[in-house]
């Protein structure tokens, strides 16, 4: 400083900049080194986690089938005013597209996409395909309408035109039991087609039940783990962690063995004369919650345990010496201090439960299937990836919303995982 003061007023400022540059240069090596250590995991996470989620979110609104397979029809529909049955130009373009799709065997694909919004559209497309295969020429409008009067429907062509957009809200709306009519107005789906809201509510409800069950069962275990002498606590800890060494599939199947009508538990109940007939313990809500609780218990216990471990034993003693009975001391001094762990454990279990698939699929009844089951259904059986993605996107949204709510009410900074 003494030297810079001699150099005049500009001295310190110049020095400060050069100091910053020097600092940056000195830190750069460290930054590069630490980044290169993190980079493999970062790339891995980006590739197998962030990217698939991004693609899934895109797929839930993506709508390219019709535009790609029937480009001429969509172009012709651009000029259509939507007031009356489209003119011959549209039908001619449609016929030309159909020639192409018949060749490429993609007629059924377009039919399936339109079928989502117009029931019976798939077979109509296939029939139109056969009409094209039969050969001959126009005018196509009369020919199509003659084969099926629905080809003249204004509503159908409005939906066809909308299906030509690259983005569609259709899958997301359907996931929320909503539909968009030909005019674009959004309304509730017919009750017999409204299943998804119920499934979301069911998913959240089952997750809540499981979270509550793990908390009620796990809290005393965590407390015991925290207060037992180390030798015995270690044995108990191994018992708590033991389920982790067995695959979820095996554990779930074990529950089937135990709980089925001819299973061990029913045999015992009968032998003890506790029941006169075999009780349905599995393939219902009870079995689902039971098996899920079993799997989730360690996830709830461990964060609570690690927080309990950090609470000094002297706190309870202090409370007792100050005049509080054992129960009062526990409730007013010990329990509030475990809340960060309870919050972490419950949040972990709840969010993991939201995504359960294999366990409800194996030990649940039809009324116990959760969102993931339908995601799998649409992915594997229906081949409707748009719908699967939309369900996934909404589940992700619900999870984030609940997380935000939790953050507002409890504060995520107060949560301790360990």
């Amino acid at each position, binding site marked *: 400083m003494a030297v810079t003061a001699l150099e005049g007023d500009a001295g310190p400022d110049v020095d400060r900049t050069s100091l910053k540059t020097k600092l940056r240069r000195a830190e750069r090596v460290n930054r590069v080194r630490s980044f290169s250590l993190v980079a493999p995991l970062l790339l891995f996470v980006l590739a197998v986690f962030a990217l698939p989620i991004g693609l899934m979110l895109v797929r839930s609104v993506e709508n390219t089938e019709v535009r790609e397979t029937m480009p001429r029809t969509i172009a012709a529909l651009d000029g259509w005013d939507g007031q009356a049955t489209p003119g011959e130009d549209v039908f001619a373009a449609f016929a030309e597209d159909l020639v192409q799709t018949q060749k490429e065997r993609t007629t059924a694909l377009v039919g399936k996409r339109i079928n989502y919004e117009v029931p019976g559209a798939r077979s109509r497309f296939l029939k139109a395909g056969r009409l094209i295969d039969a050969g001959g020429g126009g005018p196509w409008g009369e020919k199509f309408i003659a084969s099926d009067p629905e080809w003249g429907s204004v509503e159908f062509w409005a939906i066809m035109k909308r299906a030509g957009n690259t983005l569609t809200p259709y899958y997301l709306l359907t996931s929320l039991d909503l539909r968009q009519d030909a005019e674009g107005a959004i309304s509730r789906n017919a009750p017999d087609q409204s299943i998804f809201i119920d499934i979301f509510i069911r998913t959240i409800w089952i997750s809540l039940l499981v979270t509550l069950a793990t908390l009620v069962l796990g809290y005393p275990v965590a407390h015991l783990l925290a207060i037992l002498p180390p030798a015995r606590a270690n044995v108990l800890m191994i018992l708590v962690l033991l389920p982790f060494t067995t695959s979820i599939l095996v554990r779930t199947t074990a529950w089937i063995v135990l709980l089925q009508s001819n299973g061990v538990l029913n045999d015992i109940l009968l032998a003890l004369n506790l029941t006169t007939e075999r009780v349905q313990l599995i393939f219902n809500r009870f079995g689902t919650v039971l098996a899920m609780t079993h799997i989730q218990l360690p996830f709830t216990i461990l964060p609570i345990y690690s927080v309990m471990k950090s609470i000094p034993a002297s706190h309870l*003693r202090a409370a007792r010496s100050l005049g*509080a009975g054992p129960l009062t001391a526990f409730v007013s001094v010990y329990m509030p201090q475990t809340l960060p762990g309870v919050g972490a454990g419950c949040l972990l279990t709840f969010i993991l439960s939201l995504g359960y698939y294999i366990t409800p699929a194996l030990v649940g009844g039809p009324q116990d299937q959760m969102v993931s089951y339908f995601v799998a259904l649409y992915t594997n059986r229906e081949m409707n990836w748009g719908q699967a993605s939309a369900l996934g996107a909404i589940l992700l949204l619900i999870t984030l919303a609940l997380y935000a709510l939790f953050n507002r009410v409890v504060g995520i900074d107060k949560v301790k995982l360990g």
Partner: protein
Amino acid sequence: MKLPVSASESFVEFAGVQKSYDGEVLVVKDLSLRIRRGEFLTMLGPSGSGKTTTLMMLAGFETPTSGDIMLDGARIDSLPPEKRNIGMVFQNYALFPHMSVAQNVGYPLKVRGRPKAEITERVAKALDMVHLGSFAARMPGQLSGGQQQRVALARALVFEPKLVLMDEPLGALDKQLREHMQMEIRHLHERLGITVVYVTHDQSEALTMSDRVAVFNAGIIQQVAPPAELYESPANSFVAQFIGENNRLPGRIEAANGTLCSVVLANGDVVTATLTDAARVGEECLLSIRPERVKIAPPGGPLDNHFEAVVAEMIYLGDHVRVRCVLDSGADMVVKIGNVEDRPVFAVGSRIPLGWRAQDCRALDAA
């Protein structure tokens, strides 16, 4: 053991108390101790000596394996801690981190179901007492160690217990703050007239604060005495060694003459010393002399013992200088010289004359 406090004076009494955790080793062996009402009694001892266990039995967190504990004339063995009405300050304060300072201090009143207005008033008074009146709304985490200590103190005093237990309450504070808090606790004790049982392993803390100190070792009380007596007339070599600095000369008691005795050192030198209950004529003993009682004095003065020693080391400590020298018997002897302007300076290896009084030199057990 004789009990210097009579049964009628006694407020807290341990009568033949034993404690074992595993059924094999006694942590506290046959403890008998009476504590006066309003007394500041310190339990002093190395770790594992049974002092904290004794305190925990008094607080109700441990049950005696045998023997009785009486509080104010009534047996409290079967009373749970919350019914004993004993205030307690813990080693790490044990403030509840999820409660504010005011809630912490108000806790004992709240669990006793006192009305809100009374709680507010008494909490304010208790916080004023420890000079933390303006900290009521803070959380414990926002306080310094010394402030947390005061909150713990206020919390243990707010419900006006007759007896307050303190388990190494100043252990986590730095030296300066600790000395300040020692005086503050001492003054609070005088002002409130409460009985305090204080546990520490810091002998200077025990000496500065207490009316009486009970020195624990290996589950047994070695000596219960006021600080001055403890320092100047230690009952055995453990107490002499544990309290303050101590020169130890091993020897054998040859003869006794009233309170005095002559002790022969390894090289045949004879020391005149005070005979204590801990040693017997004809047996090995350990002579104990405080460094500040050893004088650098040529023979011919009023001192009972005169020997020469070789200076091994001079250690400068600011207010005094410690001269470590070796007696002809081979025993080390540390001499404290006040740092006055004309203090002598010795060369290492030079021989100097030492001397001490018989009454400052106590013949204790050889253990």
